C-alpha cells in the first residue's frame, strides 16, 4: 500500500497531527470491517470520532482514497439511500480487503512494537 495521502490543507494548528503516511487506507478498511457498509460521510465521521479530534482530516480527502481502494479490489461500492433519504454511495469491504486489512494490521503492530522497543531501549 504505497500510497501518498493528501495532507490536510489547513494544518496550521499544531495540536492536530497530520495523517500518518499510508494510514488513511488502513483506517478506512478497518472502519468498513467493523461498521459494515457506510457512505463517505459516515466513514469520515467514524474516523474523526475514533481519533477524538486528533487528526487533521479534511473529509473530502476520503474520496480519492476510497477510489484507490476500490481499484485495488479491496472494497466495493454501490448506490443506496442514506438515513436522511439522500442518494449516497455505500462502500463495503471485500474478502480481498479483509485479507489486506489483516496483513496491514500485522505489519503495523510489528512496526509499532519495534519502534516502541527501540525508544524504550534508548531512554
Amino acid at each position, binding site marked *: 500500500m504505497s500510497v501518498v495521502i493528501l495532507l490536510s490543507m489547513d494544518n496550521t494548528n499544531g495540536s492536530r497531527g497530520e495523517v500518518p503516511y499510508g494510514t488513511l487506507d488502513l483506517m478506512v478498511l478497518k472502519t468498513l470491517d467493523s461498521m459494515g457498509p457506510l457512505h463517505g*460521510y459516515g466513514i469520515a465521521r467514524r474516523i474523526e470520532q475514533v481519533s477524538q479530534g486528533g487528526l487533521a482530516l*479534511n473529509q473530502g480527502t476520503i*474520496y480519492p482514497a476510497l477510489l484507490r481502494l476500490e*481499484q485495488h*479490489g479491496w472494497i466495493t461500492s454501490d448506490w443506496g439511500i442514506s438515513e*436522511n433519504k439522500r442518494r*449516497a454511495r455505500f462502500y463495503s469491504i471485500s474478502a480481498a480487503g479483509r485479507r489486506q486489512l489483516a496483513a496491514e494490521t500485522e505489519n503495523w503492530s510489528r512496526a509499532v512494537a519495534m519502534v516502541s522497543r527501540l525508544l524504550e531501549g534508548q531512554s
Partner: protein
Amino acid sequence: MIRLRVALARLRGFLARRKGELRIQEEIESHLAMLASEFQRRGLSPREARLAARREFGGAAQIREEWRRVRGLPWIETLARDVAYALRQLRRNPAFAAAAILTLALGIGANTAIYQVLYAVVFRPLPVTEPGRLVQVELAQNGQPQHFSYPLFRELEARQNALDGMFAVSEFPLRQATLRGRGLAKAVHGALVTGDYFRVLGVTARLGRVFTKQDDRTSAPLAVISDRFWEAEFERSPAVLGQTLEINRVVATIIGVAPRGFFGETLGQTPDVWMPMSLQPRLMPADYLNAPYFTWLAVIGRLRPDVPVRRAQAALDALYQRNANLSVRTAGPPTRLQLRPASRGIDELRHFADPLYVLMAIAGLVLLIASSNLANLLLSRAAARTHEIGVRLAVGAGRGRLLRQLLTESFVLSAIGAALALWFARWGSRMLVVLARQQIALEPGWGAVAFTAAVAIGVTCLFGIAPALAATRVDLHTALRAGRRGGYPPGRGGRRQFLRKSLVVVQVSVSLLLVFSAGLLVRTLSNLRRQNFGFQPDRILQVGLPLEISAWRHNAALADPLREKISALPGVRVTALSAFGPMADFQQTGFFAAPGRPAQESDAARMVHVSPGYFHIMARIVAGRGFTAEDRQGATPVAVLSQTAARKLFSQDDPVGKFVSYSKQFERRQQLLVAGVAHDVHFAPRDPYGFIVYVPLAQNPAPVTEIEVRAAGDPAAIAAIVRSAIQSAAPNLRIGEIRTLSDAIDAGLIQERMMAWLSAAFGALALLLTFVGVYGVIGYAVERRIPEIGIRLALGARRGQISSLILKDVSLSLGVSLLVGGAASVAAGRALKNLLFGIGSVDGTLAGAALSIAAVSLAAAYLPARRGARLDPTEALREE
C-alpha cells in the same frame, strides 16, 4: 496481479470519464448536505451550516482534481491536451509546419529506405523455418571455400547422421535458362536442388506440393515455381498445377507454388523455378552427376537440436576425409570440411553492402543538417513566442510543464513527418533496388516502422531539446516587456546566438563533407567511363546471346551463316563472333604456360574464342597477325596474346612464332602457336588490362555468347536490322541485349552510377539546406541588431562598413566550419578508398567542395547583410 487490476480499473475509469465526473459530483453534494444538516442540528443557521460544511470538507475542486488523478490515466489526458495544443499552434503557422514536416519526411524517409534495403542485404534471416539452425557445409582449402561434386554430396548425405538433413543446390546450369512454348523464347531463372531441399529449409508449398527425395530419385521432370513467377506468367491461376514448362528443352510439370517471399537459399538471387537435381543431364550437354571432377554445388544442412555445431562438423569432416576421392583433389594443403552459420543463406550481395553503408551514412548526415535547420527554426519561433511563454510562466506554469509542451510540439512534427517518411521509404527502397539492378526481395515490416520511430525520436531530441530549453530560459521581466509582437531579449540572446552559430558550423562542415564525398564518387564514375578501354566503345555494337548450355553444338553450327548474314547488312563494316569476350556476361578462366614459364595463379588468365574479323573490331593487332578463315579445324592450332599476356609469358622477347599451352605447366601436346599480339583491353570497367589469350572459334568450339558489329555510322541506328537479321537466320535463338559497348560499359557501372547520382543529390540537398540555415541565422542576427545598426548609421558609418560587419561574423563561423569539415573530409576520403577509382589526389576535389560551400554560405549571408546595410537609420532607431 494487483498492478494489472489497478491498471485495468484506471483504463475503465479513463474510458468512462463522464460517468465518473457525475458520480464524484453527486457524492460530494450528498456529503456536503449531510455535513450541513449535522451542523444545523448543532444549532447553526442553514447558511452558516453550509459554510461550515464546506470548511470541514476541504477544497472541493482540489479533491475532485485528486480524485480524477487516481481514477484515470492522467498522463494520457495531459498528453492529449498537449497534442491538441501543439496541433493548434502548427495550424496557426502552416508555412512553418509544412516546411518542417516535409524536411523531416524526406530526411527520415531517405534513411528508412536505405535501411530497408540494407536490412534485406545484411541482416535479414531467410524466410524459412528456424533459419538459425541452417549451416553452410563448405570444403575449405587454405581458407578458400570449394564447391562440392555431386558424387561427394550424395555419399555424405547418405551416410551422415550429424545433421537433420542436407541439400545441394546450383543455379549455374539454369541461371540463364531458356523458357520456350509461352510466346517468344525468353529467359527464366532456375535452380537445381536435391530432393531434401524444401524439407531441410522447412518450406511448404502455398499451392500444390514441393519435391521430395522420392521425386529426385526417379528423375521426374517436375517444377516448383516462385510466387512471383506464378503471378507474372499465370496471373495466380490455381489451374497452374499440372501445366508444363519447356526449360532448356526439358518439359517439366508444375507441381507447386512456393510461398510468397521465399526466394531460395541465396541472397541476391530470385529463382523463378526449382527443379530436381537429377534432371541435370537432360538440361545440360554433360552429365555432372557421376563426375567427381565437376565441383559446382553449394551445400546447406540443418543442425540437429541435440548435436552442437562443433560435433556435427567433426563427424562430417571425418566422413569427408574417408570419401575425399569423390571430389577433385588439388595439390597443396589438405582440404577440411567446415560448417558456417547460414541463417541468412548464401550471400552473393556482400559487394553491395559497402555502398549501402556509405549511402546510409550520407543520408544520416543530411538528416543531421536538416535537424539543425529545424532547431534554428524552432529557436526563431521561441524568440517570437517569448511573450507568450513569459505570460504562461508568470501565471504559474512550471518550467517542466512548458518544456513538456514545447517538446510535444516537436514530437507532433516528427510523428507526422515519420508517417510520411514511411510512405516515402516504401517507394524509395524500391527505387534503390531498381537503380542498383539487384535481385532483392523487399518486404515492408515492423522493422522499418521501428527504425523510423527510433530515428524520429532521436531526431526530435536533436532538434527539439536545445530550443525548448532556450525558450523556457527567459527572464520574466524582459519577456513581458517585449510585448506581444515578440522581441529579442538582450540578456539571454548571446547564449542563443552561440547555439545558432554552433548549429551553422555543424551544417556547413557536414555539407562540406557531403559535397566532397559526392565529388569523389562522381569523379570515380567519370574516370571509369573515360578510361582507355583499348577499343572504341561508341563505334561498336554488341549482341548478347544468352549462354544456352543445352544448345552448345547447335550454336556453333550457326556461326558462319550468322556472320555472313550480318556482314551483308548496309551500314555494317565488320562482324565477328566471340565467346566469353570482354564487356559480356560470361568469362572463361584457365591457366596458360610458355616453355620455362609455368602458369601462375596471379595471371588471372582468360580465354576468348573469336572468329576472323574480331581484331578489326575490338583489340587491334600490334604484332604478327590475327585469325583468318584458314585457322580452321585441322590446321596448326594458333593463339593471339594480349600485350599483358605476352609480357608476362615472354617478358621482353617477341612472342610471335613461339608456343603457349592451355595448362599449368607447358605441354607440347597442347601447344598453340602464337600468331600475333593484340592491344590490351579492359575486360570490365574495374578490371586492369587483362591477361587474355584469344583462340580461333573454329579450332576451339564454344557457344557463341556475343556478336560484335563495327558500324560505318552510328551503331545504335543499325541495332534493329541486326536483330531482325539474326532472327531470320536463327528463329529459335534467344537474343539478349543489343547495345553499343558504351552502353555495355555503363551497364557494368550501375553501382558506381547509383552512388554518384545519389551522393550528388544528397550533396545538393545539403547545400540547399545549408543555404536556408545560414540565411535564417544571419537574417535573425541582422534583425536583432537593427537598433545597433541604426545608431551606427546615424553616427556616420558607411553602408559598406555595416555589411562587412555582418559578413565578418559569418566569415569566422565559415572558417571554423571549413577547417572542421576539411579534416572530416580527408578522413572520409580514406574511408571511401575501396569505392573510388583513378583518384590520385583529393586536394582539387576538396578545394572545389570548399569553394562551393563558401560561395553558398556567403551568398546566403549576403542577402540579409545587404538588407541591414540598406536600413533607413530613422526607421531603425524608431524600432528601439
